[in-house]
């Protein structure tokens, strides 16, 4: 290859990579979930904090007995997060408000583009076409990358078992219910219908319709519609979401977008760099041969004045 051609190729290749990078991560964040994905709309204005959803989840998923009964209101004194023994928890906010406290159910939000899934190097996670993010404990090595990757702190780790590492989280009752088109156990038991089950696309319309019909009741935002690329669980709230323990600093891009650009460089580094550097190396060598021809005599430098 002639040097001119080589440099031309380098220039074209470099420009292509540079253009690709500015093109916002190669169309990342454009995936809006499976068209038939189901979801749950949580209307926090309806929740009365009865914790029936917690009890239903406990029985449906055959989780161990709780430390304290599902009637015990003392659990509201502290913010809780889902654990390996409780895939969903209800927290209480705005206690001092005259309008009464606001309760918020927390569980895995079943992202359209789950960070747990992309962070897992053994493919223990699967996003099903029904919208659920499910987990295969048989291949899990217990690295807990998913726990770090999740922007909602959803996965819990079973620390009781040292030999069989298991990460546990809500699976939208996939095995027992969702697979058959049935609503998850928490939705079915909710006495106030604070949880609405349906197609995700329909739920988004429904949520905006509720805001439009009763604008005094809600803040004009559906949490989960766009956050981290959209989630299957959607929330409506009477006050700012930041006041209910929601992370309102999350971007609308999926978590994977943060590293997509960088990860896109990896094949480039692996495939182009060896050729590029050996090319440069050869060129330098050739130049030395053709130019002055002083490469053979190592003593030449010493004889210089």
């Amino acid at each position, binding site marked *: 290859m002639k040097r001119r051609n080589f440099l031309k190729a380098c220039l074209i290749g470099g420009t292509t990579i540079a253009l690709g990078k500015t093109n916002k991560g190669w169309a990342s964040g454009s995936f809006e979930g499976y068209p038939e994905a189901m979801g749950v709309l949580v209307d926090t204005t309806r929740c009365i904090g009865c914790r029936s959803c917690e009890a239903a989840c406990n029985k449906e998923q055959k989780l161990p007995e709780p430390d304290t009964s599902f009637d015990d209101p003392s659990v509201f004194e502290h913010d809780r997060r889902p654990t390996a023994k409780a895939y969903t928890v209800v927290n209480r906010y705005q206690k001092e408000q005259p309008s009464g406290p606001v309760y918020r159910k927390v569980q895995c939000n079943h992202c359209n583009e789950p960070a747990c899934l992309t962070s897992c190097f053994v493919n223990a996670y699967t996003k099903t076409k029904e919208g659920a993010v499910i987990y295969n404990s048989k291949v899990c090595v217990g690295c807990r990358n998913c726990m770090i990757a999740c922007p909602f702190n959803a996965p819990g780790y079973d620390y009781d078992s040292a030999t069989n590492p298991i990460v546990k989280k809500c699976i939208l009752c996939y095995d027992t219910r969702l697979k058959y088109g049935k609503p998850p156990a928490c*939705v079915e038991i909710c*006495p106030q219908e604070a949880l609405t089950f*349906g197609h995700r696309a329909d739920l988004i319309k429904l949520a905006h319709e509720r805001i439009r019909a009763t604008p005094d009741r809600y803040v004009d935002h559906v949490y989960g519609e766009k956050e981290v690329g959209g989630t299957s669980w959607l929330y409506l709230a009477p006050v700012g979401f930041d006041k209910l323990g929601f992370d309102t600093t999350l971007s609308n891009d999926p978590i994977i977008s943060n590293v997509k650009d960088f990860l896109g460089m990896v094949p480039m580094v692996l495939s182009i760099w060896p050729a590029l550097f050996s090319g440069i190396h050869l060129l330098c060598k050739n130049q030395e041969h053709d130019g002055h021809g002083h490469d053979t005599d190592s003593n030449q430098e010493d004889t210089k004045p």
Partner: protein
Amino acid sequence: MSSYKHFIVAALSISAISVSSPAALQCAPVPDSVTLNPNGKLYSPFTFNHAKHIQSIKECADCHHHTTGTLVLAPNCARCHQNSSPTAVVSCKGCHLAAPFSPETLAAKRADKQRYHLDKMGLKGAMHQNCIGCHNKLGNGPTGCQDCHPRTKEGAAFYSTNRKGAKPAHAEEE
């Protein structure tokens, strides 16, 4: 749930009367008590004192969206139903489905493109929100789950009530 039979029977009889003489509306027979949650597994059935509620509230439309006697009053409903004639069905069960999220219901909703009332609550949600919502607003009615219907043995196991007083989960974290 056969408990709503009373409601339906009452509604049907009212509609039958209204055909012959609209004046008879006000004295139409209404049930004095209704058994709710008749087949409850976690909570036992209980008797809803309809007569007592009629005495204290007086306005049927406060609980029933539409009645055979009063026109629709709720502003959001009145936009379309202001002049709607009295309906045959006043019971909750007449419109609110017992299984609002069943595959069949969801499929029917998707198929019916003309449907307006997409966000119609299920029976359980509608009744609880109606009762608890009003009790909260007026501040003089029971709002706790077991204030209305005590748990069955199965219900007590379901909610792990025997674990009362045990160390709460969050105490370990501290």
